[in-house]
């Protein structure tokens, strides 16, 4: 809500300079978003009267004018011909500036010109044709035009909270200023001179839906002569962001801005049957609005209709056909109160928000229609030489009267955390026009406060406590920390999640945050079957963009896209993870499940080439090693890896991960087609883990394992086995036979090549033994080793390699 400083001053007698006003508004709860200093694009332009007009002796096109500017008479050459003797015109005297151009004494075709007569375009006062601006007779000779029009001013842009529609008018803001600055309010006097016909004889008003239209008030002004809107009003409207249209429309906007009450003005002659009906729209009805758009209405919307057709969407926008034009003679002014929720819904449905709907949808005071109506009628009469027709039609069946709210000063102090004296509270309330009546209630001090109807937001004690607190100033509250005995902590899950992230970064991975949205095309890119469960995603009803239409059911597309962006930007090694929720709808459950997942992606070089080391590419085992570290940190043992059959993964290089019989997640190289689908020029390794399983399986309590002091014995073995034999087969046998004394088994080499049979591979590993009871002898170690070798030979036909 924009409001010029000088305009505000007309309604309240405060003496705060612009900077201080800004501060005071902020402190009392009216947020000042910006303050802009508006300056006229001219200076030293004075009001002058044309005394004489002669033709220029040396040019037929030019005129020579004698102009009175009060302190002197000037001779000015002028090219425009719309002036006549006696006209008041803006005169840019010698030494003035117009749009950064200096006006100097100059010679025009042999004659001295002592200044310039100005057009509205030159002065930025309108968009009319390039003729001299003729000023009306409210101006006086010698006045400085910028001063008299109050162009140089501070424009405040205020943020008004949705529960204070009373502050969507200058008078409402003035009331606030009066309260915090202890000054008096100056509300304009409205004195109506009415004559001629009686309104009841001219028009009939029927309110069909009284719930949606609690009050409907109208007046009619007759015999109007459409004129130019007074310059000061044009200046004012432009400063608050409203385009001047015509005198009548401008006045209605001006009064709305002044009072906060939206008004609508109809050309009375265009109201069919001289009948105004406030009713719900009929299905299929249409209206051509003032903005030139044809809108379809439905039966939930309230309209103002004549005997047949809608002529306005109530509280939102008028119709083009009943618009006031320059030929309008008689106008009907509407000042009404409409149901807040209905206006909000209509405006939302039509996607049409106007200054009027913005006010009505916040719930206005029905008692404010008449003042605005009369003020508007008076101004229209004044500026159009019209006649106000006698009487008013005011349909208001269920008048709202003031209510009262009780306030316990002690309670107020307890909530604010301050000690404000009761007398001060009463002062504050009174300054806000909240009338205080003191009453005793069972030995407790209670103040009863009478609430004026424009304060629709004050309904309960806490509302009054807020009023006291804000006017008293929050800065006066002394800060004190609460004293309590609650223990601050992360719970087990939160701790595990935090640790999990720390393990990830300790392994060199970067955390990413992707949007929670996705698009079904991602499922195609992932090669998912038509019936794949992941396709069962929640759809957004009102997505913002075409790319973000569903809630994600997998973290993989987000990770792959992040990899692509980074590859594209020149990264050679990308190792990232995201810990976030997936969204899966569940039968028989209103809200979806939101399981927490850990997604990991790695691509490119895990090690850059270095003067000491060769570059290393990311592979399956890197991610597997990461998983092992994660599990180690959570004390999870017994991971199992089974071949994975998943459309998004390389069938030969992926695994399903199990802990016991619980499926922890999947891991592997993405399918080469998926790689192509996501425009990735390098293979990407992905892992996705169910964090709930990690949390469930992580050991809650760990006990100390005795540290064996006896020396360890180590031995290397190399065996040759068939290519099909997996490491887990070998390690299972070794562990089984090695028993408790086998401390560690470490594979250190795999060899395929000339030195061994084709279709076979050599696996070399290191075995460490340790005995808690004492030092192991060579003989003991040999016995165990032989047992292992024998079992390997028998079970997987392994041959010992020399």
């Amino acid at each position, binding site marked *: 809500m924009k409001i010029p400083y000088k305009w505000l001053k007309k309604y309240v007698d405060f003496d705060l300079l612009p900077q201080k006003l800004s501060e005071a508004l902020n402190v009392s709860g009216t947020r000042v978003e910006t303050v802009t200093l508006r300056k006229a694009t001219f200076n030293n332009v004075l009001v002058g009267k044309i005394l004489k007009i002669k033709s220029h002796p040396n040019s037929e096109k030019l005129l020579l004018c004698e102009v009175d500017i009060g302190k002197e008479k000037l001779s000015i050459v002028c090219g425009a011909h719309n002036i006549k003797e006696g006209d008041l015109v803006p005169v840019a005297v010698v030494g003035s500036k117009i749009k950064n151009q200096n006006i100097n004494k100059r010679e025009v075709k042999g004659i001295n010109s002592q200044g310039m007569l100005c057009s509205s375009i030159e002065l930025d006062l309108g968009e009319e044709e390039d003729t001299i601006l003729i000023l009306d007779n409210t101006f006086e000779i010698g006045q400085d035009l910028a001063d008299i029009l109050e162009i140089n001013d501070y424009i405040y842009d205020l943020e008004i909270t*949705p529960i204070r529609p009373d502050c969507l008018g200058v008078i409402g803001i003035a009331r606030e200023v009066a309260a915090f600055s202890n000054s008096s309010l100056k509300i304009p006097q409205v004195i109506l001179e009415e004559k001629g016909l009686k309104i009841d004889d001219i028009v009939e008003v029927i309110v069909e839906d009284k719930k949606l239209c609690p009050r409907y008030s109208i007046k009619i002004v007759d015999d109007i002569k459409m004129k130019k809107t007074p310059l000061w009003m044009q200046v004012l409207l432009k400063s608050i962001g409203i385009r001047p249209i015509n005198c009548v429309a401008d006045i209605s906007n001006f009064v709305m801005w002044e009072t906060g009450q939206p008004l609508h003005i109809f050309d009375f002659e265009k109201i069919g049957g001289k009948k105004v009906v406030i009713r719900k729209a009929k299905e299929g009805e249409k209206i051509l609005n003032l903005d030139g758009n044809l809108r379809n209405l439905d039966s939930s919307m309230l309209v103002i209709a004549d005997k047949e057709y809608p002529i306005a969407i109530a509280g939102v926008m008028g119709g083009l056909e009943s618009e006031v034009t320059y030929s309008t003679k008689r106008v009907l002014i509407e000042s009404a109160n409409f149901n807040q929720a209905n206006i909000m819904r209509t405006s939302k449905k039509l996607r049409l928000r106007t200054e009027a709907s913005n006010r009505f949808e916040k719930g206005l005071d029905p008692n404010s229609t008449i003042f605005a109506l009369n003020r508007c009628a008076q101004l229209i009469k004044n500026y159009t030489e019209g006649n106000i027709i006698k009487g008013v039609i005011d349909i208001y069946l269920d008048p709202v009267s003031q209510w009262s709210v009780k306030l316990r000063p002690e309670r107020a102090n307890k909530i604010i955390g301050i000690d404000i004296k009761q007398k001060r509270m009463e002062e504050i309330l009174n300054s806000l026009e909240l009338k205080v009546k003191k009453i005793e209630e069972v030995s407790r001090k209670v103040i009863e406060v009478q609430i004026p109807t424009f304060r629709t937001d004050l309904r309960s004690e806490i509302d009054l406590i807020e009023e006291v607190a804000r006017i008293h100033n929050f800065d006066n509250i002394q800060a*004190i920390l609460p004293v*309590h005995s*609650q223990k601050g902590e992360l719970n087990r899950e939160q701790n595990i999640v935090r640790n999990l992230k720390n393990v990830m970064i300790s392994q060199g991975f*970067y*955390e990413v945050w992707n949007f929670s949205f996705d698009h079904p095309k991602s499922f195609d890119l992932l090669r998912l079957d038509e019936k794949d469960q992941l396709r069962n995603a929640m*759809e*957004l009803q009102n*997505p913002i963009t075409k790319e973000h239409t569903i809630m994600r059911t997998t973290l993989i597309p987000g990770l792959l896209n992040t990899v692509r962006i980074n590859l594209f930007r020149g990264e050679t090694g990308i190792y990232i993870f995201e810990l976030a929720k997936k969204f899966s709808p569940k039968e028989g459950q209103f809200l979806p499940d*939101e399981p927490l997942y850990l997604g990991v992606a790695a691509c490119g070089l895990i090690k850059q080439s270095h003067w000491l080391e060769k570059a290393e590419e990311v592979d399956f085992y890197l991610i597997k090693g990461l998983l092992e570290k994660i599990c180690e940190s959570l004390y999870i043992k017994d991971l199992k890896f089974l071949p994975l059959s998943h459309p998004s993964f390389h069938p030969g290089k992926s695994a399903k991960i199990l802990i016991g019989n619980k499926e922890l997640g999947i891991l592997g190289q993405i399918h080469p087609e998926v790689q192509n689908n996501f425009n990735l020029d390098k293979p990407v390794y992905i892992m996705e883990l169910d964090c709930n399983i990690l949390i469930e399986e992580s050991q809650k309590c760990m006990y100390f394992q005795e540290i064996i002091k006896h020396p360890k014995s180590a031995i290397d073995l190399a065996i040759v086995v068939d290519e099909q034999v997996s490491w887990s087969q070998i390690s299972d046998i070794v562990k089984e036979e090695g028993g408790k004394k086998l401390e560690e088994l470490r594979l250190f080499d795999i060899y395929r090549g000339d030195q061994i049979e084709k279709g076979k591979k050599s696996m070399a590993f290191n075995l460490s033994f340790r005995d808690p009871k004492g030092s192991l002898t060579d003989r003991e170690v040999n016995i165990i080793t032989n047992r292992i070798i024998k079992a390997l030979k028998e079970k997987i036909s392994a041959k010992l390699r020399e």
Partner: protein
Amino acid sequence: MIEKGNDRYIKDIEKYLKDSLIETDKASTIDELEKIYYQYLGRKGKITYILRSLSSLPKDKRPLVGKKANEASKRIEKFVNEKKNNLKKKVVEKVLKEEIDITLPGRQLQLGKLHLITKTINEIVDIFIGMGYKVAEGPEVESDYYNFEALNIPPDHPARTLQDTLFITDKMPLRTHTSPVQIRFMERNKPPIYIISPGRVYRRDNIDPTHSPVFTQFEGLVVDRGISMAHLKATLEVFAEKVFGEGTKVRLLPSYFPYTEPSAEVLVQCQECMGKGCSVCTRSGWIEILGSGMVHPYVLENVGIDSEEYTGFAFGMGVERIAMLKYKISDMRLFFENDLRFLKQF
């Protein structure tokens, strides 16, 4: 039984001594010396063997053989040790001659980084844990009831036009704040309540430098006996000092939120100009960082907490906004773009 004669023993000792001294002299590594020592003086060493066999000698011969063997043992040991020390010294001298180019690039162990949002959340969480708060979490897809109605925002309330909401269905919005978590927590727990709730929230905003349809909020809630705005103010002062540095000033200005009353916007002193006024703070010297207020009695009563007995305060802030101010980041899109050059910085 002893098979060899006494003289033979003496001769053997002399031979061993001589041999060992020659071998030691030749030895060029510590390992060789260890072997020599073991060969003569170890558990199964040659001299050790003789010493162990003394008891089988005639009594009158024992002292002489014993004496000789002990002498030999001492000499060998001494000689081996001297040689060992010499060798060690040489090794040290040799190692000391090595020299490297200390300006060559170092070998890197990998170190990842937490996302700045996580880092900021952790930082704020820790501040509040220190003040006795617990962390509460809840669903991101919410019901209208928890996201709006229970927070004193009934259907058609004008506050519903304040922010644009993303919906799954009319009655199922994506949460627009983490306040529903507070409602859920209050339904299950009795006061005293001291909780914080960080998490993702959603708004129907287009992505631009200061808006994002997905962002992260951090809210706090206290419900206890005798809680007042003075407590709110002090709590936020602690928060601001910990996040933005010692002495950071905080200011509360009246505002409006449906679920708190009185409500306050919270401003901190602009870090760029230290309150003098600059372009960052639009010349005011203050920057708005969060919303707060006293929990509305309606909200408390609605979850079955007696609002006469208990009062409370709540506050909420955008995590990205805090990080942007703290690290001087001007574009919110960076948080969700995940460019590694951004991620590596924090």
